[in-house]
């Protein structure tokens, strides 16, 4: 891989500033990636807006008519309430509504929940997002670390019994849908074998326990997150393992490993700094991406285990037709995914010295 060099732009007088700015953006790795992320978020915002407003039986209209039917208010009153809740005015043409929406977004205003009037969507987000981040974070960490270690072991002991067993298990758990693994955990461990107490693991923390910065709370949270985390780890560790195994195997064949042995370096040093570090590089970038997808896929696992994170809220919002919350969560999830992807790209630049931007020419 060659380094991406950014020579200082020789501004020729004929070149317009716009095209040279565009050029600079395209050449600077970090800026280009960030620009792309922003564009994606913008597109998704737009899509989500139009999806909500153009779906058959537009939720806004449905809401207005529901209000009218339930409370017998006039169309205008209902409309005004809708405007307040959705941050839109249905009288305006769609284009203006869209701009209003964007404006509100930029102020951090995601609207209010339809079902709990007075609760802003943003506050819902803040209340439930940390739980998802917690479980996804813990799960990702365990899965990644376990995957790297096992992957390296498999590479060093290729074709051994351990290698075959781990490959098989990893592949098996990866192909079975994650929610099914979750159900299996409950059914087999909980019901049939009575190993775990399902009822008490429900929810994100035990009733009566106050959220606080304390070890007790942390352990309690872990206890409740155990099933989602276990499900997640089981279904993803296989991919990390196989990826690390193949990376390690190819790294082992590299010249610098042979030369390192010729230099008399110790086995441990070679394994960590020469093989491990090089093999793990592509995976580290993947971690951020995986995190993004985990947040997106959380709706299934959290609903299954009644773990009150952002996915569970989304599910109940869909079921109860709380359109503003849905829209908000959708945005936040997408934003997380985009952010995660961006982080992955930036991270890759940081850890692999070959993919760097140099401002001096030559090397």
């Amino acid at each position, binding site marked *: *891989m*060659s*380094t991406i060099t950014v020579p200082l732009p020789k501004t020729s007088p004929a070149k317009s500033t716009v095209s040279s700015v565009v050029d600079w953006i395209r050449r600077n790795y970090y800026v280009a990636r960030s620009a792309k992320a922003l564009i994606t978020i913008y597109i998704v915002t737009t899509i989500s807006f139009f999806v909500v407003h153009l779906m058959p039986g537009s939720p806004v209209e449905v809401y207005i008519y529901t209000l009218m039917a339930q409370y017998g208010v006039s169309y205008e009153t209902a409309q005004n309430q809708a405007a307040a809740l959705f941050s839109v005015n249905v009288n305006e043409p769609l284009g203006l509504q869209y701009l209003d929406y964007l404006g509100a977004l930029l102020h951090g205003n995601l609207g209010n929940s339809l079902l709990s009037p007075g609760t802003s969507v943003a506050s819902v987000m803040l209340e439930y997002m940390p739980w998802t981040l917690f479980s996804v974070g813990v799960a990702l960490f365990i899965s990644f670390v376990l995957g790297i270690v096992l992957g390296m072991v498999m590479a060093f002991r290729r074709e051994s019994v351990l290698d075959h067993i781990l490959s098989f298990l990893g592949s098996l758990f990866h192909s079975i849908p994650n929610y099914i693994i979750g159900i299996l955990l409950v059914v087999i461990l909980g019901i049939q074998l009575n190993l775990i107490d399902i009822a008490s693991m429900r929810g994100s923390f035990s009733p009566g326990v106050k959220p606080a910065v304390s070890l007790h709370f942390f352990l309690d949270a872990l206890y409740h997150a155990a099933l989602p985390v276990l499900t997640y780890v089981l279904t993803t560790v296989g991919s990390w393992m196989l990826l690390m195994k193949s990376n390690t195997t190819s790294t082992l064949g*590299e*010249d*610098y490993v*042979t*030369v*390192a*042995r*010729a*230099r*008399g*370096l*110790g086995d441990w*040093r070679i394994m960590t*700094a*020469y093989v491990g*570090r*090089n093999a793990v*590089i592509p995976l580290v970038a993947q971690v951020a991406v995986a995190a993004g997808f985990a947040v997106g896929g959380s709706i299934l696992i959290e609903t299954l285990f009644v773990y009150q994170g952002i996915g569970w809220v989304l599910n109940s919002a869909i079921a109860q037709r709380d359109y503003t919350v849905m829209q908000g969560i959708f945005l936040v999830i997408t934003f997380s995914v985009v952010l995660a992807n961006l982080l992955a790209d930036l991270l890759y630049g940081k*850890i*692999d*010295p*070959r993919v760097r931007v140099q401002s001096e020419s030559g*090397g």
Partner: protein
Amino acid sequence: MGDTVMNHVASSGGDIANTADVVLSVKDLWIEYLTSRGPVRAVRGATFDLHQGESLALIGESGSGKTTLGLSLIRLLPHTARIPQGQITYRRKDRTSEVLSLGAEDMRRFRWEECAMVFQGAQNALNPVLTIRDQFVDTVQAHRRQGQRQIHERAEELLRLVQLEPDRVLRAYPHELSGGMRQRVLIAMSLLLQPQILILDEPTTALDILTQRAVIDVLRRLKEQLGFATIFVSHDLSLAAELADRVATMYAGRIVELGPVDDIFYRSAHPYTKALLEAVPTVVGNDEKLISIPGSPPDLRNLPEGCPFHPRCAFVEDRCRTSDVPVEWVSNRQEVACLRWRDVRGEVKS
């Protein structure tokens, strides 16, 4: 074992204990690779001594076994290789050790401390995620307890010796340096622990002509200054002419001729050596035709009976096709494995 009986009609250069300044003694070394179609013998009965401070060139085509021989000296052959027979005796001051019997930890110490090998094609010889400085530190700290400051200073010294600018190079990552610079970094790194022996595998291949020149000059100067023994493995005879004290030519895994550089070049006794010499065009154009060696490189799985070179030899006779070829002494410093060496030296072809 073996299909050729190596009758080493020895006089001088015999037992290592007798000669005070022999640092490495290889005796009857056989190396084979296990393939799905049976073992392939890459090195057959190689025997030579390396004296203190001398440079020995191992010359041969690809497939001649020279790289394999080099790798075997530090026991970094691939997993598929086996050494069914032979001895590699290493001597430092008054202590000798048998390299092939060293345990893992001793072998690790042996590598780079006593004998360092600089591989060919330094493209990927350095860890891409560590700076050059870190790799110097790694190398030293694997063998000695030394502070980074000290290592840094020594690295600077060595880098200057190979004509590189220490500040810039030490801070850099391998991909930021050119191929020639990386090669020189490796050479500098190889001297870190002051080994007695330096093995250089094709040190100038894949470098442009100017860098080749620079590297050769560096090597020559280093040898003069630091006095280590060197083994050059190459197909390039001109390299041998520049840097070697003794030259060994290898063919089909066998050392077919070994002697001082002048004797090899001007009084060669083996048809292969002679052919190699004749194949090199001279700059001083004399309108000589380019003579390439007829035939193709040997198939190591399917060697002919008798002398392995006979299908391509200009001096071949009937007995070459059938009988084993012993090593004979041409003089007290030159040895050859050819039945007709006298004719070769006197240029009588049949």
